[in-house]
């Protein structure tokens, strides 16, 4: 297959979903079945294209980067800068090829699942249109060879996330969650935007290749290594927002208000992984300090989210915190330099977390239907305390869910074991090289917590007895269109798809295909090179594997002991650690903190501004008004009394004179004659005297 064919296929992959979106958004309601088949067919073809790309890329162009670009705008010669062109384009390296396959695969499975899950929804066709728009935007992020297109896709997935979280916008909580997700993402995107602007100012290009090359040759933002670190952290801000990292993780749990397949696609597998992808893409640009910040942010996020997940009772919220925690893992992996492990975990996590969400969707669907049959509108269909014993009624959902849970817990023979093991080994190697022991400690602790809360979820949902026997009778397994995607994803959780060695991913094709790129930053501020890291990794690999097996086993044991065998009472533990339990149940009070600081702060600021507006600005305006009013009052009085007075006086004078002179106008000729005679006499005397 020629490179051109590959690029053509990539463009087809990119454009198929947007074409489906355009047709479905405008004509969806008039198409048969509201156009779901069109959107699904488009993404299925995109999936076939991207699988072909992946296969061809890995097989024949493993070490190459295929690129296609065009000049979007040519500014010619810009004064002070020189020739300036904005070149946009796509590039396919192994990272892109794998991401393409992951995105289109999850998207396609979610499309199929949605046909069953969203059946009868009020905005069915719009839902599928947005899924298409999302797929397009996500593929644009993946394919972009420059920060410009990447940012466009970045914002487009943001808006799709907003639209789909708010799909049931009649619900106040859903529209609030959509707005929250959008605004919190803005905070991160601001940093990302500033980072892009700094890079563009420095290199006059958006092209990643050119930026890396320029940095390698010694061009630094504002000529300083400190600014290079700062730029890296600013760019990472975008990932913090999009991948729901501490301190901007608060939007993701609320985003669960969206339809569950959307949570699977956007808020578990792809969009939130875009932040991880961004860090991987820009990896060569990060200095050691920036990577340390990234590693710590990831570790903190993984820890916070895992602790919160233990106490949550909403099935989707547990999964949401689990997602945040796993994203923290990936970010941490990239931060410590375990580039391949971080990206590998992105891929495996996309499979099992999408599966977990779709599985939870299947459960919620069944619960909803059962509650609907019982005319019960009070019971929460998503609360795991209302579930239990679903295993017998939903075997496919249960077994697939169990496979995903084993994968996320890191049980051997699963994909999650491979990737998590690599990450933990990476953190150990990192602490060996730099002495930051807290990171591997957090990593192992979170691995144990993950196994614990995931099995807690499985046990409470599927095992044990159901609270309401009558309701259990109404529970039905979901239709084929929903269970088949679950089975496919469950298969993809087996190690063999990624590496034929069940205890080491290093020899697998993913690890072979995705190699850590060489850093381009000056050697003085660069992280230890890949070779040194690999060496350290090699030494700790066995230790890491044993430790991760131990903590995962402990976590699973603890979950069974607490929730299945009831040896330990969860309530007693909660009572014994009441302050801690309350702290975790309230999600570390992050929402309250942001309410108090960010929201109330903003409100206080706006109140101050309103006061300023009302008092000072309006005061000036009103003062001007009063001054005008006063002046016009004086001028009015002047008009009334002086000008009008003069006019009236002249009129009055004329009137008075008329009144006097009227006396002479008697109308009697005789009088006139007397006057004439007297007048003549007067004249006589006057002129005689003169």
């Amino acid at each position: 297959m020629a490179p051109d064919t590959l690029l053509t296929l990539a463009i087809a992959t990119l454009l198929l979903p947007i074409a489906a979106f355009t047709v479905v958004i405008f004509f969806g309601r008039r198409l048969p079945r509201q156009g779901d088949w069109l959107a699904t067919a488009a993404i299925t073809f995109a999936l076939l294209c991207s699988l072909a790309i992946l296969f061809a890329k890995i097989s024949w162009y493993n070490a190459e980067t295929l690129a296609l670009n065009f000049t979007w705008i040519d500014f010619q010669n810009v004064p002070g800068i020189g020739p300036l062109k904005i070149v946009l384009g796509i590039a396919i390296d192994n990272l892109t090829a794998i991401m393409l396959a992951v995105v289109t695969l999850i998207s396609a499975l979610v499309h199929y699942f949605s046909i069953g899950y969203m059946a009868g929804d009020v905005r069915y066709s719009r839902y599928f249109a947005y899924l298409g728009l999302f797929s397009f935007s996500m593929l644009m992020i993946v394919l972009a060879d420059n920060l410009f297109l990447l940012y466009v896709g970045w914002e487009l997935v943001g808006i799709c996330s907003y639209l789909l979280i708010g799909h049931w916008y009649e619900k106040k909580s859903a529209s609030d969650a959509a707005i929250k997700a959008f605004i919190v993402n803005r905070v991160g995107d601001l940093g990302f935007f500033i980072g892009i602007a700094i890079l563009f100012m420095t290199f006059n290009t958006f092209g990643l290749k050119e930026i890396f090359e320029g940095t390698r040759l010694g061009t630094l933002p504002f000529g300083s290594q400190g600014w290079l670190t700062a730029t890296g952290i600013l760019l990472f801000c975008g990932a913090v927002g999009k991948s729901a990292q501490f301190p901007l993780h608060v939007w993701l749990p609320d985003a669960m208000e969206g339809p569950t397949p959307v949570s699977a696609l956007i808020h578990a597998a792809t969009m939130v992984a875009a932040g991880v992808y961004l860090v991987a893409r820009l990896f060569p640009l990060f200095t050691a300090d920036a990577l340390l910040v990234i590693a710590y942010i990831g570790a903190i996020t993984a820890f916070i989210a895992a602790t919160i997940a233990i106490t949550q009772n909403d099935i989707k919220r547990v999964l949401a915190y689990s997602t945040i925690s796993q994203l923290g893992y990936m970010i941490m992996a990239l931060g410590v330099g375990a580039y391949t492990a971080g990206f590998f975990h992105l891929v495996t996590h996309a499979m099992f977390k999408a599966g977990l969400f779709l599985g939870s969707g299947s459960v919620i669907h069944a619960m909803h239907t059962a509650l609907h049959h019982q005319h019960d509108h009070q019971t929460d269909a998503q609360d795991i305390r209302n579930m239990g014993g679903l295993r017998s009624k939903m075997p496919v959902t249960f077994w697939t869910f169990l496979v995903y849970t084993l994968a996320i817990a890191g049980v051997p023979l699963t994909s999650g074991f491979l990737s998590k093991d690599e990450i933990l080994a990476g953190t150990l190697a990192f602490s060996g090289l730099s002495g930051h022991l807290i990171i591997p400690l957090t990593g192992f602790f979170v691995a144990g917590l993950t196994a614990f809360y995931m099995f807690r979820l499985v046990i409470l949902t599927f095992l044990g007895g159901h609270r309401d026997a009558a309701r259990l009778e109404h529970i039905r397994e979901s239709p084929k269109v929903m269970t088949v995607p679950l089975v496919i994803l469950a298969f993809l959780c087996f190690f063999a798809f990624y590496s034929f060695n069940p205890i080491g991913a290093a020899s697998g094709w993913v690890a072979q295909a995705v190699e850590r790129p060489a850093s381009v930053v000056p050697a003085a501020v660069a992280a230890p090179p890949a070779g040194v890291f690999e060496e350290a990794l090699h030494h700790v690999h066995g230790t890491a594997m044993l430790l991760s097996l131990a903590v995962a086993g402990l976590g699973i044991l603890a979950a069974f002991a607490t929730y299945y065998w009831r040896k330990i009472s969860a309530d007693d533990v909660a009572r014994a650690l009441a302050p801690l339990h309350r702290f975790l149940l309230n999600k570390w009070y992050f929402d309250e903190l942001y309410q108090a600081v960010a929201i109330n702060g903003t409100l206080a600021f706006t109140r101050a501004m309103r006061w300023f507006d009302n008092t000072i600005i309006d005061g000036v305006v009103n003062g001007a008004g009063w001054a005008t009013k006063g002046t016009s009052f004086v001028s009015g009085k002047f008009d009334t009394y002086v000008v009008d007075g003069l006019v009236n006086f002249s009129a009055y004078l004329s009137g008075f004179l008329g009144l006097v002179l009227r006396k002479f106008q008697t109308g009697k000729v005789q009088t006139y004659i007397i006057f004439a005679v007297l007048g003549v006499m007067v004249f006589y005397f006057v002129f005689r005297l003169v």
Partner: protein
Amino acid sequence: MGSLESLWHDITAWLPHVQLAHFLIVSAVLFALGIYGIVTRKNAILVLMGVELVLNSANINFIAFARYGAGNLDGQVAAIFVIILAAAEAAVALAIVLNMYHRFQTVNVDEVSSLKE
């Protein structure tokens, strides 16, 4: 009769001494009487008679100035014109007065004021 004769004698003796001033005095008296008549009378006929007096006082002046001043007949001619004019005027004015009486049943000039108001 003796006294009458002496009076006549006196007059004939005085006549050559009659000067322009005497005529003017007569004319002025006549004029004043005419004006007085015009102004004070309410009867339109009497007013017209006053006007005749004024015209005749003017005639006396014409003739007096012609006799003692210019020495030609211009004054006399003017006087003749005035007499003709006065006749015409009297004719017209009397016709008006007749009409007035016919209409208002009065010749009082003060009561004939339909233009006023």
